[in-house]
């Protein structure tokens, strides 16, 4: 299934945050959306999953979803959004409960999702007993259990320390290699964008506009820190960001 955003414009109380943004997540591909903080990239993601109404523009899906898909557009949140009074199992179970299926099927989905993120041993733990990385893996398991057509990932690694972030990037790469899901991966971190994105949509400062979409052809599983292709992509993205910053500086000097 593809997820298509067309000409999205959004404003908060007169302040424009997104300006005519169009973006497509194609089946089996991760699109990284990269931009400075406050450029509206998280807002774009909330709009694309139906958590916010844009001032103008439309979001469509096209194509069929897999038969096991319970929730086609599924978020992974920056702050994990785990329910503190539910165990890890119950957190993963929560979105399955209202779907008509046998309890055995539900439990099978939960345990396979927890196994895929290596959390089987912590199924009975409460969120506060988990480390940051484990919390995010639990929230990824919750998303995996509903077999989404498109993952909507809102800075999923930003609340984690650098080492945990590296480990989770490897986990995400492995998960994608197992089942080629599609995803929109919002981040402000260039390293994450070039490690996980099949393409990187670079957003401008507020109001967010798409500056350029940088394609990275290297297969995810082969990507390593310091691979020449990734360095090239990173440098290209850096140049875009630098040019943007230079424009900003000129604007400030005009204002003075």
């Amino acid at each position, binding site marked *: 299934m593809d997820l298509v955003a067309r000409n999205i414009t959004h404003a908060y109380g007169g302040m424009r945050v997104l300006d005519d943004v169009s973006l497509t997540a194609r089946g089996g591909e991760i699109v990284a959306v990269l931009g400075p903080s406050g450029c509206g990239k998280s807002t774009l993601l909330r709009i694309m*999953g*139906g*958590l916010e109404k844009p001032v103008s523009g439309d979001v469509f899906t096209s194509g069929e979803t897999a038969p096991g898909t*319970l*929730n086609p*557009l*599924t*978020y992974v*949140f920056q*702050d994990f*959004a785990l*329910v*503190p*009074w*539910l165990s890890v199992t119950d957190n993963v179970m*929560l*979105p399955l*409960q*209202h779907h008509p299926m046998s309890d055995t099927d539900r439990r099978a989905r939960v345990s396979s999702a927890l196994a895929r993120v290596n959390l089987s041993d912590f199924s009975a733990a*409460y969120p*506060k007993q988990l480390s940051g990385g484990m919390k995010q893996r639990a929230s990824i398991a*919750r998303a995996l259990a*509903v077999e989404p057509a498109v993952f909507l990932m809102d800075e999923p690694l930003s609340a984690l320390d650098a080492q945990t972030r590296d480990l989770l990037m490897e986990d995400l790469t492995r998960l994608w290699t197992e089942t080629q899901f599609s995803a929109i991966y919002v981040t402000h971190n260039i390293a994450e964008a070039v490690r996980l994105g099949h393409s990187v949509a670079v957003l401008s400062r507020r109001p967010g506009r798409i500056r350029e979409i940088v394609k990275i052809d290297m297969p995810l599983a082969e990507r390593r820190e310091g691979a020449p292709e990734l360095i090239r992509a990173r440098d290209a993205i850096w140049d875009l960001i630098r040019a943007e910053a230079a424009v900003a500086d000129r604007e400030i000097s005009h204002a003075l």
Partner: protein
Amino acid sequence: MPYERAAPAPNLVPIAFRAGGFLPRRIPFMAGATFAAALGLWWTATSLGWVSDLALPPPAGVLAAFSEMITNGMLVKHMAASLQRLLIGFALGGSFGIAVGFAIGLSSIARSSALPLVSALFPIPKIALLPLFILWLGIGEVSKVATIAFGVFSPMVIATFGGVDSVDRGLIRMAQSFGVPRWTIIRRIVLPGAMPAILSGARISASIAIILLTAAEMIGAQYGIGAMVLASGNLMRTEQLVAGVLVLSALGFSVSQGIGLAEKRLLRWR
């Protein structure tokens, strides 16, 4: 040689520890000792005649009054009457309060209509309504229960809707993004999220309920701890009066222990 130990400076002054205090702890057996000391002071003051037996009866007198009330069955009779009023009034007021609190917390219509009404009712000392309730409902049980229920209702509403308001909206949006139905969200996200506030509201309104219970029983009741305390005062039977007051203390204490237990069980995840 950067790692070689430097020669000691001529005058080494140890730094002061500055982070003491502000960490009160429970000292074991101190509570029991304090009670024993208070009891001892009471016993000394009465047995040495510092205060007259009429003003403050000796501990032995209070104990005797207790055992007399137990053997002639009056304690059970008073306790049963009081507990029944308290439990029914608290349950009624509490459940209506929680329901209205949820409505105010979840619906704009309820918030705009019921909240101003509850805010206006909240500051009324509910005992002032007892005469009205007696006119409406008679001098019997119903008017007392209604006063207690009313007194419990408004603080429960305020606590509950505050609790519902404080539930993390991120969790609600998460559940919505997974297509979780509204009723399930209320039951599994909003209710447990509001539970800490509901329980602390229950704690406050329980103490209000005991005050109203006592006052209502003093205004017009044959049985009940409040009626017993008032009657003992009128008859200058202070040892029975003090025994009644101790019963009220025990009642309040056990209610708050019960709520503490509920907090421990329901809020285990914290």
